[in-house]
């Protein structure tokens, strides 16, 4: 496709070219928006090592992957893997559901704003329907993932209780079934 010259000598781009051209800018802004939902956003934004900064690193990686899928018109099923990378984290943090999913929306507004601001791309805004529809689908998938993660969290909790992988308190210790008298253990211990 590439850049074309129009009569007015203004360079204009086609949509796929614009997505490539502004890739870093859009992703940066998108990631920044998501990370500003955290109180310590500057660290999350600045530290690039994924292991020293799992929230920031995974958000950046996931959004970069997702951006490719959204802009290339990929099958919505392919949104799931990158979305999961970020939703799995946000699902267990101190967010309300809308707060957890919210940042996925943001790319719509960021992209539109960046394209509108530049003469070369302003005309592309009307062509964003398919892209924005893909974002809508991603948001819905993100909500599904959010719910799956929450359910999984409760399953983990139930499993921990049921399997007794760490039972320390009275209420759940099976050995309590042996107790007939709360004072009994003390007596037994003294006999040793």
């Amino acid at each position, binding site marked *: 496709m590439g850049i074309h010259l129009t009569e007015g000598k203004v360079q204009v781009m086609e949509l796929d070219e614009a997505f490539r051209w502004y890739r870093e800018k859009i992703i940066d802004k998108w990631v920044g*928006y998501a990370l*500003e*939902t*955290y*109180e*310590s*956003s500057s*660290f*999350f934004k600045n530290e690039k*090592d*994924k*292991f*020293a*900064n*799992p*929230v920031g*690193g*995974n958000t950046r990686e996931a959004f970069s992957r997702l951006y490719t899928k959204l802009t290339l018109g990929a099958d919505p099923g392919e949104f799931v893997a990158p979305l999961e990378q970020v939703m*799995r*984290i946000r699902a*267990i*943090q*101190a*967010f*309300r559901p*809308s*707060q957890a999913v*919210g940042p996925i*929306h*943001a790319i719509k*507004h*960021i992209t539109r*704003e960046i394209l509108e*601001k530049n003469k070369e791309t302003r005309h592309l805004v009307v062509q964003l329907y398919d892209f924005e529809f893909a974002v809508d689908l991603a948001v819905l998938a993100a909500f599904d993932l959010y719910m799956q*993660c929450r359910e*999984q*969290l409760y*399953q*983990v*909790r139930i*499993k*921990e*209780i049921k*399997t*007794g*992988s*760490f*039972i*320390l*308190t*009275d209420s759940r*210790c099976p*050995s*309590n079934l*042996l107790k007939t008298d709360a004072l*009994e*253990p003390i007596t*037994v*211990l003294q006999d*040793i």
Partner: protein
Amino acid sequence: MAVAKLEQLSKSVVQGPSLATGAIPTQDWMDVPVVFKPGNFAYQAKVEKVEYLNSQKDLNFPNAREWSPENDDWKLPEDWKEIILHGLKERLDKFRSLKIFMDCCVRCGACADKCHFFLGTGDPKNMPVMRAELLRSIYRNDFTLAGKLMGKMAGAREMTVGVLKEWFMYSYQCTECRRCSVFCPYGIDTAEVTMMLRELLHLVGVGINWILEPASNSNRTGNHMGLQPHTFKDNVDFLAEDVENLTGVKINHSFNRKGAEVLFITPSADVFAEPGLYTAMGYLALFEEIGLDYTWSTYASEGGNFGLFTNNELMKKLNGKMYAEAKRLGVKYIIGGECGHMWRVVHQYMDTMNGPADFLEVPKSSITGTVFNNAASTKMVHISEFTADLIRHNKIKLDPSRNSHVKATFHDSCNPARAMGLLDEPRYILDHVLDNWVEMPENTIREQTFCCGSGTGLNTDEIMELRMRAGLPRANAVKHVIDKYGVNTLSCVCAIDRATLTSLMNYWNPGCDVCGVSELVGNALVMKGENRQELTEGLRTLV
């Protein structure tokens, strides 16, 4: 330039009653009150547990009462403030380290981004420097001239109920893992600041059940689970039978046997809960194979020491039980199993509290002749040190192909790694019991290891979300080696890890098993006279 619709979106979804309330703090940290709601705090201790502990000799757990973190009124004793300030003064006088830690921090920020709680929550009060500042601000106000004269300008503030609640919130969002202290140029042990916060809170009857109940169980029956001696014995007997069924080798173990050479102490979770059970089976098989003259104890039936998570008196008392039992049985030395904080207590505090254990001998392996001079004072050898020494001297036969179902990585459990420097022995063992295994990224292992996120008595289910947040940095590194190398097993040398990492993996990396290093030893061990079945899953195989 701001994006108008985005701003609207931010307003509708980002603002709200949440810890994650947006980018720019609008208030000074001192003015942001803590909010307790289900899921962000561990349940308060039951009255009878606090009363029981308080009734015990040498222990002090006053002001037992019904209360809840969620209520505005915590029903603190009337003179709570005097109690706290007096308690702080007493500790500043008693622990020179505390005084230094309060004075010498220059707030350089080296620790700030090293805490797994901070990395998982983004909550600035989880930066270790800030967590310490919660106490330091009170210290400045009441114990320094600058603070008395200049107040808030000097970072001082008055002790209030709000501050006390903040202490409770954040001293129980710290697992005392000490990763932050690795990076502190002054060597401040921020975990000890958390320990002081918890000690002070106990003075006014503020503590959590998940710690105080196991601690009182331990004081009462000898172990966290509250298992009575016969139950403890039965469980070990069952495990010995399981080993016999799998390997064809009869296990000859004993309990409370006077005159044994070695007393073996491990966390009770190893003899009671999956997946620790398989680690205990590994111990049983190994000791049988080398013919070690050792005994279990139904009195010192717990390696863990939840006293460490409460106050120094209880820590001392629970640690003392192990040594009292070693003395009573007349053993030469103690071998300790795969436990985390037991080793921190033994290496950092035991000598001052209950040592030196002069009635024991400097540990010397009767199999290899190696003298463990590193344990010359505590007389306690780590099972990994002991096993690595056996391997080094070719005293056991190992067949790594028996672990062919395992593709492992190794999690350095915080306390053995950072509190006793046990870094290479488990790795040496893994090199010999596995065909291959892989390391996680460099800044997540060895001294820099990330905590499981649920240590120091925080492994209770009501704060599962908090645990998953705190465990994110660890799980994130595990995910990396799963994706890159197809790892299916996370090995470690800590009982709390074995329990908590299991839940952590179940959320973050389903399908990744958790095991103890001694389980892998048991899997690979070629035993004399064995009649071994086809064990496709090692000691976990159901036959």
